[in-house]
């Protein structure tokens, strides 16, 4: 592989790593498992880079490889009772291909910025890898379940907000 080809891989990889991670973590919403699959996927992408077909698009190519790795992961995982079955994951993967990306960056940023500071702070504390829900709950003097409920509410309000954004856009487009 030439240096330039490596550099192109690096650029596309960096630009799209969030999308690839998002795809994996949507199908396997468990942090350390998603990490594991991302790393395996990245390795395969690197090894198969000379077979990359630019007409197909980088993300679509990466998704194909990731889905393979997800299936392999589900088959060898010893913790089958924490993941959806392969059949359901396949159905979900199929649906992802036909539906629009629910997380549009613009809508997310707008909705995220509308959250209260307290809510954003809670998201960071819970989602940052260095912390944990138990630590957060202890620090706030409450229970883990209470924290999970708050997280649920924040996620629901973000989704509702993004849905509005989406339909607003549709209205705007119709007017044009």
């Amino acid at each position: 592989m030439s240096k330039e080809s490596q550099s192109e891989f690096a650029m596309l990889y960096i630009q799209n790593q969030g999308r690839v991670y998002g795809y994996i973590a949507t199908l396997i919403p468990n942090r350390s498992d998603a990490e594991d699959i991302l790393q395996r996927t990245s390795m395969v992408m690197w090894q198969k880079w000379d077979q990359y077909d630019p007409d197909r698009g980088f993300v679509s190519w990466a998704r194909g490889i990731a889905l393979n790795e997800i299936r392999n992961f589900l088959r060898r995982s010893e913790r089958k009772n924490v993941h959806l079955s392969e059949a359901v994951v396949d159905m979900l993967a199929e649906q992802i291909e036909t539906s629009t990306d629910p997380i549009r960056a613009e809508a997310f940023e707008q909705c995220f910025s509308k959250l209260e500071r307290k809510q954003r702070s809670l998201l960071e504390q819970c989602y940052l890898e260095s912390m944990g829900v138990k630590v957060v709950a202890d620090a706030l003097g409450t229970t883990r379940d209470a924290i999970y409920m708050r997280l649920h509410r924040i996620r629901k309000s973000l989704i509702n907000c993004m849905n509005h954004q989406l339909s607003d856009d549709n209205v705007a487009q119709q007017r044009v």
Partner: protein
Amino acid sequence: MNESDQNVGDPDETFLALTNRMCDGTITPDELERLGGLLREDPERRETYLAYVSLHAHLMWQYRTGESAANLASDRAADPGVATGGDLSCGVEPSQRVSGTAGGFTTWLASRPVTVGAVLATAVLALLGVTLIPWSGRATIGTEDRPTTTATPFVATLRETSGAFWTDQQVALNAGARVPTGEVRIERGEAELVFDSGAQLILRGPARMTLESSLSASLHSGQLVAHMPSTAVGFRVQTPTAVFVDQGTEFGLLAEPDGTSEVHVFRGQVDVLALAEDGGAAAANPLELVDGQARRISQRGNVGSQVAYSKARFGLLSQRVAEPIAWPVAEGGNGHYYQLVISDKPVTWHEAALKSANTYFRGLPGHLASVTSAAEDEFIVGQLIRQEPIRGIWIGLTDVLKESQFQWITGEPVEYTHWANVPTQQPDNFREADWHGGEDYGMYSKLLPKYPWAWNDLSIDSMHEKVSAYLVEYEPAVNTLRQTSMSLPPVRWDESEGGNGHHYRLVLSFESASWQEVRQRAQDSQFNGVAGDLVSLQSDAEMQFVIEKLLRVCGIPEQMIGLSGSSFEDLTWTDGSDPDTAQIGKPLLPANGFYGLLRWDATRNHPPSYGWSIQTRAMDVQPSDWFGYIVEYPDDIP
């Protein structure tokens, strides 16, 4: 009992609660079974599930530091059963953590270089960069204190930096690091940031900028150039005096210490919004700037005034965001991509040819551009060269193999031409004789601003003009394109001229190679179904034929031939015959093996040899870069 069980009566709420627990990692095996059943039944539910879990995944990504990747092995060992404590927890005390801010891929490689293989690991680490920094940047939650952190998700990756790149927490980041929202600064050098939206910003120090989200940033002072792919349309950069909204583009932006800002649109469109005098919301009606336009805004409240466009103002920085552009089939084009490369120092045509052959865009191999129609010519001048302040641009056209017989590097026939006719008609070979020397390399040139862009021929050393730009064309792999060589059709040494009926082909190689490699190439090549070999010059007559037909009219000063041996005394031709060593230049120093070459000496440029003689060189000394070689194809009827 979990609080979410309160709403167990409502099926939608139950479904959402299960989804929620799936994300948190608190779902039980029974619940997982129910969730799977509900998802299987109903595509609309799957849609809801995907929206919810995608958000969860996006949040994980935003706050992902990469450290769980580094701790993957230990996590797995420590957590063999059902996740009981919730997956959001890593189970390690924050105070003990060291944050690996590189991506999981690089962290993984760093943690297991032995498994992956040292070579690959080294290559990839150097490529993507890996860093470990002390996790001092974020406040941790104390047991007594209320949380003091502010939400600072990661929104970009630092792809490269040539100077110290600081966050507002006084943490210096290395290439490969994820960059959180907040202020960053660079005192000197350049730093390339790739936002998660795909936006690419290159900052030149001294510069100060605040990252706000994956789609917005504020440049307080300094210089940047931006390349915005379609995923980043809508990206906003704010300066102290205005807001700039990308509409799919490449542009340069300056913020001077007094707040004055200047934007130069290299390609595409940028909307400029005036900031209110008090720094409040930007005006609603944007001023649309398109490529080749520039604007200077020295105070808030208006969109400033037009200034002279200058890509050069951003120097080489502007090159780094100049992506190849397509000539779409829909617009009458060929679907190929083109790129104007401007270097900071002169390049020879051969360097440009080799560099072009070694570049790729979207997996398509590059080559020095071939301009085979008026439409392509117009596209190149209009869309690529435009008003660049340069005088010459190499293209893939040369007559170095045979004087006055120009050919494209791709092998395409030269039918369309656009030679300059002012101030003098080109190609003029600079009034040289019809053979060696003179001007053999094609380029676009524009000697004076009043002349149009047209072709000129120039010599290899470009003594009278420094050329530092070249044009690359990317197109689907065709056999000849992947090769770093070019040649003319072979010439036959006819029996009527006392010849042997063999064919002789002169090949130009753009890159260095050993004699063995070159011989292999010769043997792998065919003409009329007959495999070739490096030439064996058995007689004076054969030598004379080669000089007359191939060498006298070519501009390559050195050609490899089929002569080799472990010592000067046992040199043999590739056909097994022995040479007349009296005719061959002796090597200066002893070596383990020699090969032969035809070399041109300008001081002996007269008949019958015209300066050409057979010389020898140590086998381990390769030509420095470009050189020629001669392949001989025997008569096809044995």
